[in-house]
């Protein structure tokens, strides 16, 4: 299989997830391969083709989320944030939401640190991926798996 190195790097992330999903049975594994492909398509639509290297990006979400309507999220990128070496943008993607794009942040050396917190919606237990673009034109990624609790009692049931 011949692929450009960067693409293979990113697929390795999704491949690892698909392997992990095998524990949940072949149907689940296939479904997750599908959702991860959609996620990757959204990443490509946002940052274009070219290498995306796993690393430097930390996606922080509590291990167990009590409600998917407001999930605390912190993304952090290792970067000196200097005039000639800084993070330009961070894009956050969901694997299973109806639309993969969650939020994009635009920053620069005047941020001082590449660390942003917000609150997002996640419809289900899934993987969240963040891709950072640095001033040298390179891309980095990080991800985390989140378990989202569904409300037990629905008000309008």
């Amino acid at each position: 299989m011949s692929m450009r190195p960067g693409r293979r790097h990113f697929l390795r992330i999704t491949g690892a997830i698909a392997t992990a999903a095998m524990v949940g049975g072949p149907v689940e594994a296939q479904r997750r391969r599908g959702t991860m492909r959609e996620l990757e398509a959204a990443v490509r639509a946002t940052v274009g083709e070219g290498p995306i290297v796993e690393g430097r990006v930390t996606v922080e979400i509590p291990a167990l989320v009590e409600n998917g309507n407001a999930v605390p999220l912190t993304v952090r990128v290792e970067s000196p944030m200097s005039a000639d070496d800084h993070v330009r943008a961070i894009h956050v993607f969901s694997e299973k939401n109806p639309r993969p794009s969650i939020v994009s942040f635009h920053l620069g050396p005047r941020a001082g640190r590449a660390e942003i917190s917000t609150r997002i919606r996640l419809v289900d237990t899934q993987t969240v991926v963040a891709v950072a673009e640095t001033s040298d034109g390179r891309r980095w990624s990080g991800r985390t798996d989140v378990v989202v609790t569904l409300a037990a009692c629905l008000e309008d049931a």
Partner: protein
Amino acid sequence: MRTRTLVKVPATARRGEVVEIKVLVSHPMETGFRRDRTGGAIPVDIIRRFECRYDGDTVFAADFHPAVAANPFLAFTTVATTSGTITFEWVGDNGFAHRESAEIQVE
């Protein structure tokens, strides 16, 4: 409904210090994926863009999609450069636009 915001910017900072800014704005962030009681689709109504300017320069911005939670919250940082005004602007669907500002004293 009125738009309310909560903004936290340190009143004073040392030059070159990295300061944390937190902002919260009231907005339902209607996703467009929900249905009302009669089964009709509730149209999407979200904030699309947030910008933070420091003495006129954009130092941070965010593009929101429907997956940003209701009453959007952001915490980010900026380098204290000079005494001045930091402004915050949220712009979204149906003509939504809201501005806030805060002063910072840099020593």
